């Protein structure tokens, strides 16, 4: 109730131009469950996003366990092939749209207003709406598993005509779920753009913004440009399936290959949507624990922007095998490999930031360093896949699976875990158990490599992806990979314990600046972060002091 009144009050204030009454009505959150349903507070919504993403991560992870259990040995042991296909499909969809993307939006909600000295997001009520769409979309997606004919089983890329002519009836629910997820992320992105462009502290220039804010601003533009194209693709699927159109049906003059063009026109920017905020997180953490300003701040900004622009002109490198003239193959190959230039700039900047720094290895730093190393491995296998003639061999093998799990698990997911450990003490006011967190880190980082590294070898040897059975020569590496998979999966039980233990019984943190050498406006507010922050914007002096790239001024 009180939240709504506040917002009304805000608007009345705005209309009347009177702000006098404003400063004194500080209040905490509403009591009870309705707080979470009705909240318009960016911190509450950030928390909701992150818990939602975490629960989706566990569900998607459980599906991965089914996949790895079936692949433990050759032959069909546990699940029938159709269910296996539903597992790979939903695992991919849930992890991409349910776990990684909402987790980053959650981090954005918590951190962006704190980092730019704003009171809240620009559109608090739309913020509430874009979160609360998600649980329904997620439930609808998962519910397809229990429908007659089973859930979608055509892979997360849902190529037509597999997803149109030959798909189960539940596909229409899948389409609607994708529409809702897309709607939610477009609204989230609009909110982020409006917040960053309009709500920054008056004295904060664009080039004073922390890199997490910069990368999210660019990501948000990618989102509003790419997600509507996905919405268009699934809408065409919907009308092809139900209303007699023939967008992807050759019998009516359509073309199934066009589906792939439209899908990847969305799909390639999408992979950068999932990795650019990760770059931002790592660029915040490494300077803190290397005790040096970030090396090459402005080159980081320009590199991020160039990656974003290039991401729209390389989509057909996912389609080298659909038949393409040699000129097309060359163009998409060169354009793809060109992305490694700005990405390389970033990796070298992180390494240079650490160079001769006074480094300590608290848990967030461990995850960030692991990110730099393992994401780079994923980048290298991406380069291999970008080479058109070589891709003929690698296409649709486990090499591709290994590649995108290196960039998405040890890349995006690791950065999210790093971010949570980095900012959790500020959020809840308690310190996590450093010893347990380190044990968890080493457990996870070793098992994730046991899980995914052998998949490179399997792919190079020719094991196809998305198949529940395999020839005997693939048996050993699959067993190793599955053992790594079970160990990595189990590590999340410990992670859950560490997080819950930190929130409930963690040692209270006294300092506002939780990490002694951390820079950024978020460390100038009290610990734990009060429900309302930056009622008065930070001064120019504070902003300049807290720009971690201050060395460049």
């Amino acid at each position, binding site marked *: 109730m009180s939240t709504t009144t506040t917002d009304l009050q805000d608007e009345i204030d705005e209309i009347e131009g009177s702000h006098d009454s404003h400063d004194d009505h500080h209040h905490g959150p509403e009591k009870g469950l309705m707080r979470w349903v009705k909240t318009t507070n960016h911190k509450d919504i950030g928390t909701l996003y992150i818990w939602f993403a975490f629960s989706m991560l566990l569900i998607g992870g459980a599906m991965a366990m089914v996949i790895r259990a079936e692949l433990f040995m050759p032959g069909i042991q546990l699940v029938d092939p159709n269910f296996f296909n539903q597992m790979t499909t939903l695992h991919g969809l849930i992890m991409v749209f349910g776990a990684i993307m909402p987790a980053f939006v959650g981090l954005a909600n918590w951190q962006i207003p704190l980092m730019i000295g704003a*009171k809240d997001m620009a559109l608090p009520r739309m913020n509430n709406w874009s979160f609360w769409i998600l649980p329904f979309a997620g439930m609808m997606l998962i519910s397809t598993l229990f429908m007659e004919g089973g859930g979608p089983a055509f892979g997360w890329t849902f190529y037509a005509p597999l997803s149109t002519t030959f798909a189960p009836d539940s596909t229409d629910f899948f389409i609607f779920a994708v529409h809702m997820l897309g709607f939610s992320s477009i609204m989230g992105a609009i909110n982020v753009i*409006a917040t960053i462009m309009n709500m920054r502290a008056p004295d904060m220039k664009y080039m004073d913004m922390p890199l997490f804010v910069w990368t999210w601003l660019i990501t948000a533009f990618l989102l509003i440009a790419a997600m*509507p194209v996905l919405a*268009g693709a699934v809408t065409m699927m919907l009308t092809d399936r139900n209303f007699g159109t023939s967008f992807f049906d*050759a*019998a009516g003059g359509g073309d199934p290959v066009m589906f792939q063009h439209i899908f990847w*026109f969305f799909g390639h920017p999408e992979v950068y949507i999932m990795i650019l905020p990760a770059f931002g997180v790592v660029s915040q953490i490494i300077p803190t624990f290397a005790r040096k300003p970030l090396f090459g701040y402005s080159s980081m900004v320009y590199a991020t922007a160039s990656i974003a622009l290039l991401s729209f002109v390389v989509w057909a490198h996912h389609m080298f095998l659909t038949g393409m003239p040699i000129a097309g193959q060359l163009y998409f190959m060169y354009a793809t490999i060109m992305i490694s230039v700005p990405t390389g700039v970033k990796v070298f900047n992180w390494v240079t930031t650490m160079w001769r720094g006074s480094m300590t290895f608290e848990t967030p730093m461990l995850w960030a360093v692991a990110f730099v190393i393992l994401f780079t491995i994923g980048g290298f296998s991406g380069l291999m896949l970008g080479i058109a003639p070589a891709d003929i061999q690698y296409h649709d093998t486990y090499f591709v699976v290994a590649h995108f799990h290196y960039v998405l698990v040890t890349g995006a997911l690791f950065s999210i875990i790093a971010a949570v450990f980095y900012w959790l003490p500020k959020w809840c006011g308690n310190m996590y158990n450093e010893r347990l967190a380190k044990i968890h880190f080493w457990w996870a980082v070793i098992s994730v490599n046991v899980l995914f590294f052998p998949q490179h070898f399997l792919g190079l040897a020719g094991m196809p992806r998305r198949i529940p059975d395999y020839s005997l020569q693939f048996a050993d590496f699959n067993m190793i990979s599955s053992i790594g998979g079970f160990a990595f999966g189990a590590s999340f039980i410990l992670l859950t314990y560490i997080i819950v233990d930190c929130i409930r019984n963690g040692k209270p943190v006294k300092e506002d600046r939780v990490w002694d050498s951390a820079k950024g406006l978020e460390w100038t507010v009290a610990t734990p972060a009060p429900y309302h922050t930056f009622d008065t*914007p930070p001064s120019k002096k504070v902003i300049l002091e807290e720009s971690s790239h201050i060395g460049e001024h």
Partner: protein
Amino acid sequence: MSQQKQTITKAFWVKLFLVPLGMFAFAFALVPLYDTFCDITGLNGRTSSSSYEGQPIEVDETRTITIDFLAATAPGFPVKFYPMTTKMKVVPGKLYTINYYAENRSNEVIVGQAVPSVAPGEAASHLKKLECFCFNNQKFEPKQPIEMPVRFFVDSEIGKEVYNITLSYNFVKVKNTATEGVAGL
């Protein structure tokens, strides 16, 4: 405080919301764009469904090209359909005729349309058809067998790197028997 709450102009919101709306429209604009692009470039094996009416082109006796003929039918199209010649060597510029065989296995009248496709895409614009069952709808009486000729040549301007061409036809049922040919092909 007064500095904090900056008003966001209406124009800003309009611009911001127009981007996703425009991109949604763009997804649909990709459909005609893709069609036009493929028709012009012959990308994706898009080949002409109308008769070649240009001048005869000079014969290039110095090389031969192998052509494979394929046939497929859409699901639920009860016609037996296959090429009577599956492979032949051709000299660029010379005219050839081969036959496809089709037989209606059902007891109903069926109207179908064959959709041609050429691989590799570079060859699509160089394979010229003078006569083809794909130019029009084909009507099959119940249990009727037909032999359908394709008269074609490969023009001698085709790139030297192409030495093998595949011509395939996919026979599909025509939804509305009144239409001539298939829209957009």
